[in-house]
């Protein structure tokens, strides 16, 4: 079978996929968003605490706690054998980003839960110290999922290994900002509003950079089908959120509408990534053409050596 693309052709076996698409259910993109937002929220919590914006800090901390309570449920629900979730904690395996992520999530969850418990018991110093610990682990929780998906044979994920962590970081930051902007009192939430708008701008830039660096062929899965719809809607929601949040910065209602838009944009971006990954695995040209190009390039200087 010949498939033409930009004047090039690639062959395939009846158009069948070469690599297998991921088998994760929608729990996983939801987890990517919730885990990412929780990690960034912990960082914002520490920053707010340092500025004396304690109510904002509490909002971010509650968001992080909610995140670490929901996250394991989503992850376990997606397993083929949920009762064996704990098997991931029987080993410490540096070559497996998913194993590393399980440890990161566990440590982060322990710190946030411990800090909340200490807060209830009135141990303020312990509570604050554990907040800082969570704030230190938070960024890792936000970006490790990008490493996880990039460390696969899925064409658009692996090829985007340099930019995907920035997409995920921007999404986390924007979501944490949106949570603070929506739920913290106005006099304290200035930094969260700036973070929300900045994160949304960052998400647009990081997503655009990712597509550009993927090149015309591998950007296709992000522009077509369901993934294309997710990505376009995400970008429109980001733009709407930035516009509403900037123009209506004096109004709490407008701020909340902007926060909802930007949170929605972040969720859809995660769905765009997982769906584009699936689409890129299902069409063999995304696997064959980059590999062919690499082989041809390697062959040219070396001469006639055959692989």
């Amino acid at each position, binding site marked *: 079978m010949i498939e033409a693309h930009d004047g090039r052709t690639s062959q395939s076996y009846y158009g069948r996929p070469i690599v297998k698409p991921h088998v994760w259910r929608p729990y996983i993109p939801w987890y990517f968003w919730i885990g990412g937002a929780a990690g960034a929220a912990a960082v914002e919590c520490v*920053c707010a605490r340092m500025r004396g914006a304690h109510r904002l800090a509490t909002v971010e901390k509650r968001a992080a706690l909610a995140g670490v309570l929901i996250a394991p449920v989503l992850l376990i629900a997606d397993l*083929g054998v949920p009762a*064996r979730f704990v098997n991931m904690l029987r080993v410490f*395996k540096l070559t497996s980003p998913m194993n590393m992520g399980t440890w990161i999530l566990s440590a982060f969850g322990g710190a946030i839960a411990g800090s909340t418990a200490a807060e209830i018991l009135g141990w303020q110093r312990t509570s604050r110290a554990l907040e800082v610990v969570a704030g230190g682990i938070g960024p890792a929780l936000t970006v490790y999922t990008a490493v996880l998906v990039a460390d696969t044979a899925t064409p658009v994920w692996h090829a985007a290994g340099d930019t995907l*962590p920035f997409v995920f970081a921007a999404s986390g930051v924007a979501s944490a900002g949106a949570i603070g902007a929506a739920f913290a009192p106005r006099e304290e939430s200035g930094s969260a509003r700036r973070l929300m708008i900045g994160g949304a701008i960052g998400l647009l830039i990081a997503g655009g950079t990712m597509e550009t660096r993927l090149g015309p062929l591998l950007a296709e899965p992000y522009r077509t089908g369901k993934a294309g719809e997710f990505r376009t809607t995400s970008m429109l929601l980001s733009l709407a959120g930035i516009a509403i949040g900037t123009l209506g910065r004096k109004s709490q209602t407008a701020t909340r509408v902007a926060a909802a838009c930007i949170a929605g944009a972040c969720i859809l971006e995660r769905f765009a990534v997982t769906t584009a990954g699936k689409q890129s695995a299902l069409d063999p040209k995304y696997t064959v053409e980059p590999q062919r190009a690499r082989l041809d390039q390697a062959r040219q200087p070396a001469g006639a050596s055959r692989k």
Partner: protein
Amino acid sequence: MADLYDETAAEREMATHEASQPRKGFFTDTTLCIGCKACEVACKEWNQLPADGYTFSGNSYDNTGQLSGSTWRHVAFVEQLTRDAAAPPATAKDERAQQVVHTDGARWLMESDVCKHCTHAACLDVCPTGALVRTEFGTVVVQQDVCNGCGYCVPACPFGVIDKRDDDGHAGKCTLCYDRLKDGETPACAKACPTESIQYGDLEELRVRADARLVKLRDEGRYVDASLYLRDTDDGIGGAGAFFLLLDKPEVYGLPPDPFDTTRDLGKLWRQAAYAALALVGVTALAAFGAKR
């Protein structure tokens, strides 16, 4: 895995330390394959794998389609109806049309595909539970009693071999008949192959045999396009435990032309993630402390 075998602890210990065990593998010579699918059947029977149901591809004699969690051997049928045209027909309709015109130049390429048992195995690297292990035979095996069905190995495999099974939720793939190997037996597929297209043995010996076969085929002038796929150890997966003699480009058989284990890029990936994490902290701090209010 070990409790499946009636061994004493001491014997098990011995097996683990037997470093002298040569690496086992498959050499699949596609010039000998007659497409009988005996390997598919033998594999399913020996490993007690469920049937795939009655599905018809409508484009060839291949109704299996692909390797999956419950299909560990898959015979590909490539039907090239003109020898000089680089590609087989695109649709069933084209196929009929071309058949009328070019009946004389037709050739069938058949290839029994299987897990490659990579030297650098992505599935084994990314497995978060340690369920995927390397055996004393140098093969890669899923421990069914450890796997929790996270599905990470599925997109990680550069060949699309391993898959998650719907029935029991575990990942499944070829074990090179680990249980038969333990008893010194030949894997079921190789045993059932009537033409010795699937050859089992010590990997080193298979490589020598394959090299000789390639030279012979080329000298005879019948298969000048023949090449060995995954035979060398300098590729992206460090060489495979199961390699092939092909008559066309790998992608024609549904195989990747330049596969690699993404673990080789893991350092770079974490470095980019570290930069992104620093940016996250920087932006958050800037939003908090950068403005007057």
